[in-house]
């Protein structure tokens, strides 16, 4: 999968590097384009360089090397206040000494909007987030969700050229977070704004993004639409970071076009697709299979036997954990309808999965998720 952004992109990171101490590079050779009107999410574990990337675009950090271009102009050294990007912070950073309305008027005053225009714009912004009733309250008097909406409105009210968000939903509880994800997605569709969003939550990234850039160790591991990075991960990190995966140790024995034949330590044979980077014959590999691809029952290919360790009822599905000798635990996600026939813990079962659903990666690519 290559960068699908139409060129010229609105924002382009061109070989950008960032190091705080001159030795350790937090961001290593970043190439990334953001298209006008696109919702791009930077996803990755903490310390992966995603927040530093956002901070460089916002102007709070300067790249050590490389260029950041906005509308084909180099903005490396442009001060933040001239960049005209709306920004939403993780802790909202609403000014505590100003009312909600004053917070919303602040960017309008700074950008010299006509005095007569400001109250109307503030009012419309408050209507947009349905918080007209709290205009005269201080931020401390609002709930977390209300503060979040005010912060969002403040970043949008002055019609910025793009909006940057740094884990803006991190402090909210799960239900509110899911609600706000939909609200932000809807706002994006309605306003057609270019948005750059940073998160470590892959569900959040999948819900909102046009494209996701997955960061690890200062590099982009893969960029693409949510379905692409989920179904066709380019490396084991992406595969394991996006959703869940069972990892089965195996060794490559033979190849059959795009398919590999592998053998597990216990002797069972596996058939899996080869990862884009390729695997040598006889090389140690890990075969990754998502739990929803694993089904109970016998099959001719990719069939493993084990003992049911646990059956967990999770509301919308069942999770069956199977202990496979010499391989380890395998998790299967079954529809609720399968419940009556589900084996109980201690029972011997066979599980299988389609070769197309299994991806083989090099074993050295051991990743903690």
């Amino acid at each position, binding site marked *: 999968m290559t960068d699908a952004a139409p060129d010229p992109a609105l924002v382009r990171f061109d070989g950008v590097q960032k190091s705080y101490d001159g030795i350790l590079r937090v961001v290593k050779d970043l190439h990334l384009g953001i298209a006008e009107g696109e919702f791009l999410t930077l996803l990755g574990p903490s310390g992966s360089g995603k927040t530093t990337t956002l901070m460089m675009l*916002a*102007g*709070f950090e300067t790249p050590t090397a490389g260029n950041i271009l906005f509308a084909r102009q180099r903005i490396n050294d442009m*001060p*933040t*206040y001239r*960049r*005209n*990007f*709306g*920004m939403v*912070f*993780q*802790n909202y*950073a*609403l*000014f*505590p*000494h100003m009312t909600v309305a004053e917070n919303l008027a*602040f*960017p309008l005053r*700074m*950008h010299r909007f006509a005095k007569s225009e400001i109250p109307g714009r503030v009012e419309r912004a408050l209507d947009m987030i349905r918080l007209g009733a709290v205009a005269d309250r*201080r931020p*401390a008097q609002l709930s977390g969700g209300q503060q979040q909406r005010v912060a969002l409105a*403040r*970043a949008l009210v*002055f019609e910025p050229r793009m909006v*940057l968000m740094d884990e803006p939903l991190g402090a909210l509880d799960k239900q509110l977070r899911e609600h706000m994800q939909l609200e932000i997605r809807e706002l994006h569709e309605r306003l057609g704004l270019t948005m750059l969003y940073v998160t470590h939550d892959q569900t959040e990234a999948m819900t909102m993004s046009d494209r996701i850039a997955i960061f690890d160790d200062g590099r982009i591991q893969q960029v693409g639409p949510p379905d692409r990075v989920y179904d066709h991960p380019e490396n084991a990190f992406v595969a394991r970071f996006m959703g869940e995966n069972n990892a089965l140790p195996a060794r490559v024995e033979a190849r059959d076009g795009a398919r590999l034949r592998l053998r597990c330590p216990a002797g069972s044979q596996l058939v899996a697709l080869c990862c884009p980077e390729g695997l040598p014959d006889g090389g140690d590999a890990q075969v990754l299979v998502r739990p929803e691809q694993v089904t109970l029952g016998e099959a001719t290919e990719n069939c493993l036997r084990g003992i049911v360790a646990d059956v967990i009822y999770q509301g919308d599905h069942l999770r069956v954990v199977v202990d496979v000798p010499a391989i380890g635990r395998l998790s299967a996600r079954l529809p609720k309808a399968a419940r009556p026939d589900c084996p109980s813990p201690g029972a011997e079962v066979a599980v299988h999965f389609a070769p197309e659903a299994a991806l083989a990666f090099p074993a050295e690519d051991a990743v903690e998720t």
Partner: protein
Amino acid sequence: MDRNSRLAVLLVAPLLLLMIVGFVLPLGTTAFKAVDNPEVTAALPRTTAALGQWSGDGLPDEAVYAAFVEDLLSPQDNRVFGGLVRRLNFEQTGMRSIISGARRAAEGLQAPYSESLPALNAVWGEPEVWQLLQTHSNPYTATYLLRAMDLRMAADGSIIPVDPQQAIFRELFLRTFIISLWVTVFAVLLGYPTAWFLSTLRGRAEGLALLCVLVPFWISILVRSTAWFIVLQREGPINAALLATGVIDTPQAIIFTRPAVYLAMVHVLLPFQILPLLAVMKRIRPDYVRAAASLGARPWQQFLLVYLPMTMPGVAAGAVMVLMLSVGFYITPVLVGGLRDQMVSYYIAYFTNTSINLGMAAALSLLLLILTGLLVVAAARVLPGLNLGARV
């Protein structure tokens, strides 16, 4: 009272006791001393009783004269009599010799005393001296508090200003508050950037810099003021350095001037401004200033519209503390200031230690306390952030 509330009372009892011993008692005593007037009644009990019948018009009758002489003749503790003399002399200069003269001559006086006493000293034949005695035979007096405001009560009971030569206290209070205000202004101007710089430091540097602020804080005010005394004196290092570099040819008077007082007081009080400010600044995440920048605020706008208002609670807390402490300053102005730079507490000490006029000392203290309280209330209204500290 159930068991729980008894336990609660028991638990707060030590605190209550401390409050009473350390706060209510001293303040109450001071307030009482400022209006307490026991001297005349103690030394002249019979006269006090006899004057109670007197209308105050013209001269009192023979009974009062007789009671007065009897009081003078009765065997008396010299301390009680000394108190009377000091007290009356404070009210009216010259009373010391008048009363003492009467006491010495009392043995030889013949009845009717309404004739023999005025023969001894014409003062006793005039109503003013008896009015004075009558006024101060009251156990309470407003004299001290009035005097602390350069006022006195005339013989007819009206309140009038004291003689211009005696009027020193209004100017003294004004001077005290002007010095304190300037000290506060300097402390804010110097403390703000210092606290900001400290708040940007991390790790070792932060600890070291904080130590630099705290070490002077741990040294006694007396020692620090004395150090300034040494540094600023005519033969001190500052004059020596200026002479050596040829900036001046004769040693300059630095010590015993107002600038010397400001310098030493600001130095002593600066930590009280820096520490609350630092506490507030440390709690302000860089996000707020960044948010302001992202919303289009230029650096000076980021400071004036966001950072400064958010640090106002620290400015206010520190400034009020510096102001309150400097209003009561004593040792530093005494050491490095001239006579025209002394503050109220200098005179409180003078009345306590030198002229042994506890009433005056108490009245000055009480007035200082009241004025400082009013100032703090006013400051709390003017400085919006003073009670907002917890919300940031």
